[in-house]
């Protein structure tokens, strides 16, 4: 049976076919759909869950592996930074049930804060690295990755990129491997307890493991030699292979699926058969450096293919064929169409007020990061998940006592990000005498990644009811004074402003919470607003709320704002900023 599947859907299928029984993740583009698919399509056979963050997800997966089942963790590239602690030591403990960590990199930062090449993690953690180049391989290679994990007693890093995870191609579906559930809990203290005395002897074993993997690579089905025209030999993996194959279908290829450690002998043999070796890879010279270390001459690598951004089929083809594509000139001067807060978004009112107050806003990762863009420009720093609260604390300590409100700091963080790693930062602020305002914009969902449940909802990935963690109670329990914990309506601009001013003037931590749900995920639609053209002076203040439902129409004296009722959700934010009372609900 054949289906057109995305790379992520194929990985979910591969997990099912591999007999996986446990999967955990924190959502992150472009990895999110892996667990979404496991949690829906394969829920009868695989236990799966969203975890509060990637470290937690991976640790639960290590536990499942120790129990003896095949287990999978999935995350985006920066998620592995969060999960690096358990990953590096899981390399020492090894596995009982096969353990695969799927990480989806995002070259060109389509939806990310950096462009790190996570292949480097395999080398750093001394674990094997598997890279598929289309959906069929994503499924098949994942099954092999579990076999490698068990055979070599190691976690396996399974790395995709946006163009693998989010591209669709035809996949041949297979059956599920029925692996028996473990019938008892084995104890092996020396294997799983990484005290110095037990961990020290592991390190030489890991070095030996890498040598064994290097030898295995020569005969692994993950690696493939395609001999053709011998004047050019191309070494490539992942999406780069597809671009190169498209450009030079008749060249000779060493197509690697196991890209760390690379199979020395196979590379040497391939290099000896071709006139010149070209390494085509995206981001870092990861393969190129390994090949050069073998003393093999690489004719072209990073001198031809950029270290930054995504490769493109035309750029690869132009280099490999030496022929420029004929192209028409691109249209210039077109207005850009950046992502924006949706009409009715519960973040719009908050950023409208923050801009007015001119405070310094320490931001976080989520839809609300868009508050940094014009016309808001009301978010001034964003580093990593959970970083808003901690940066705000550092800023306020460094600034000392300030009198001008614009030198005070507000941390802005969403519900899912707060659960991910904001809680520890708030502990820090409380413990160490901080005095910033933390604005928790709880929209009852992980919105940016397409709407995944959080620990605050009362539902799990698989749809079960669960206790909902109450943010108000949590922050009070941590030690924020109950009178400094304020819940405001995301759509009442006056209330937000009054409360923020009061809390900014206090010498201790405050938490201001909005609880209005994501309009997109919860399909919120109230009576749309309309503009009275007579009352409207076309001053343009409403446009500064950056809502695509609003626009200016007409010329001269007839010029006025207009609202598209198809987009408008009736949130009233534009009406509240209008000084002429020209915006009212439709009758």
């Amino acid at each position, binding site marked *: 049976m*054949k289906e*057109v599947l995305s790379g992520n859907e194929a990985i979910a299928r591969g997990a099912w076919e591999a007999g996986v029984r446990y999967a955990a993740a924190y959502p992150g*583009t*472009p990895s999110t759909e892996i667990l979404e698919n496991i949690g829906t399509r394969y829920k009868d056979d695989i236990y799966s869950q969203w975890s509060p963050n990637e470290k937690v997800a991976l640790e639960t997966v290590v536990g499942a592996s120790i129990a003896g089942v095949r287990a999978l963790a999935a995350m985006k590239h920066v998620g592995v930074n969060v999960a690096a602690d358990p990953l590096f030591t899981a390399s020492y403990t090894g596995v009982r049930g096969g353990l695969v960590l799927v990480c989806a990199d995002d070259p060109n930062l*389509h*939806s990310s804060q950096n462009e790190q090449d996570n292949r480097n993690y395999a080398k750093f953690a001394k674990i094997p690295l598997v890279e598929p180049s*289309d959906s069929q391989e994503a499924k098949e290679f994942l099954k092999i990755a579990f076999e490698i994990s068990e055979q070599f007693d190691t976690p396996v890093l399974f790395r995709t990129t*946006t*163009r693998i995870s*989010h*591209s*669709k*191609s*035809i996949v041949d579906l297979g059956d599920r491997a029925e692996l028996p559930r473990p019938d008892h809990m084995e104890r092996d203290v020396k294997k799983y307890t990484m005290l110095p005395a037990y961990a020290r002897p592991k390190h030489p074993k890991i070095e030996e493991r890498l040598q064994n993997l290097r030898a295995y690579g020569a005969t692994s089905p993950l690696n493939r030699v395609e001999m053709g025209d011998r004047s050019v030999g191309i070494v490539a993996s992942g*999406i780069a292979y*597809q*671009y190169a*194959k*498209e450009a030079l*279908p008749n060249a000779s290829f060493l197509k690697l699926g196991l890209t760390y450690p690379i199979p020395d002998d196979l590379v040497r043999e391939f290099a000896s058969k071709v006139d010149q070796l070209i390494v085509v890879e995206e981001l870092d010279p990861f393969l190129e450096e390994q090949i050069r270390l073998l003393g093999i001459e690489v004719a072209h690598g990073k001198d031809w293919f950029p270290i930054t951004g995504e490769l*493109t*089929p*035309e750029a690869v*083809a132009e280099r490999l064929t030496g022929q420029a*594509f*004929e*192209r*028409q*000139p*691109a*249209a210039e*001067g*077109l*207005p*850009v*169409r*950046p*992502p*924006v*807060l*949706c009409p009715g978004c519960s973040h719009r009112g908050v950023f409208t007020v923050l801009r007015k107050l001119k405070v310094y806003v320490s931001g976080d990762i989520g*839809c609300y990061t*868009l508050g940094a863009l*014009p*016309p808001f420009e009301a978010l001034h720093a964003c580093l990593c998940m959970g970083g808003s609260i901690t940066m705000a604390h550092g800023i306020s300590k460094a600034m000392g006592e300030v009198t001008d409100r614009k030198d005070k700091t507000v941390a802005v963080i969403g519900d899912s990000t707060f659960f991910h790693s904001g809680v520890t930062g708030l502990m820090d602020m409380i413990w160490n005498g901080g005095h910033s305002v933390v604005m928790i914009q709880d929209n009852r969902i992980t919105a*940016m*990644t*397409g709407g995944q449940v959080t620990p605050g909802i009362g539902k799990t990935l698989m749809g079960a009811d669960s206790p909902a963690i109450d943010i108000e109670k949590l922050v009070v329990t941590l030690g924020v004074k109950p009178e400094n914990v304020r819940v405001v309506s995301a759509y009442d601009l006056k209330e937000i402003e009054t409360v923020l001013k009061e809390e900014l003037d206090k010498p201790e931590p405050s938490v201001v919470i909005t609880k209005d749900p994501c309009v*997109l995920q919860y399909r919120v639609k109230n009576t749309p607003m309309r503009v009275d053209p007579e009352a409207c002076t076309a001053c*343009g203040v409403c*446009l*500064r709320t*950056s*809502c*695509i*439902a*609003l*626009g*200016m129409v007409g010329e001269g004296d007839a010029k006025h704002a207009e609202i598209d009722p198809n987009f408008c959700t009736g949130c009233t934010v534009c009406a509240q900023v209008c000084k002429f009372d020209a915006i009212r609900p439709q009758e």
Partner: protein
Amino acid sequence: MKTVNLLLSGVGGQGVILASAILSRAALLQGLDIKQSEVHGMSQRGGSVVSHVRVGEKVHSPLVAEGGCDILLGFEPLEALRFAHWVRKDGTIVYTPDRVNPSTVSAGLAEYPDDVEERLRTYPVNLVRVEAAALAERAGNRRAANVVLVGAASRFLDFPLEVWEKAVEESVPPKVRDVNREAFRLGREA
């Protein structure tokens, strides 16, 4: 069959992804190889969306090469113009004149150019203008404009009509099947 390279450009929420799915489905029913790629994540929030669909005997790259696009489907005139230079000489651009203002225009930070269609005409391509929203409305739902465009593009792909009809049927929810079937027909005949 020579590989056919399609690009679908539009705005988040217009149904670019569903249109891509119908094209892929039709190619699969034809027994062809397919690759389709788009970037999603931030795009549902009114941003530009572009989807690549490649169909042929054997397809390697999931991305269409800039300058190598055979058929561009523009779901919005500005988005058609933004990708017009991806189309090869003598390729085809099928587009709808229905505008969607970018947030930068709504916010008064930029102006929507009033010469978009004129500029589209300067490209050395076969330009097909389809009033997709109006035709979709006639079919019963303005939101089926995406399927009107697929219908219009179907004339440039040599698949039997039954294949297209089956692909549409299998790609949309049962309750909007009739509207979409009609939208496809109106687009194909436009």
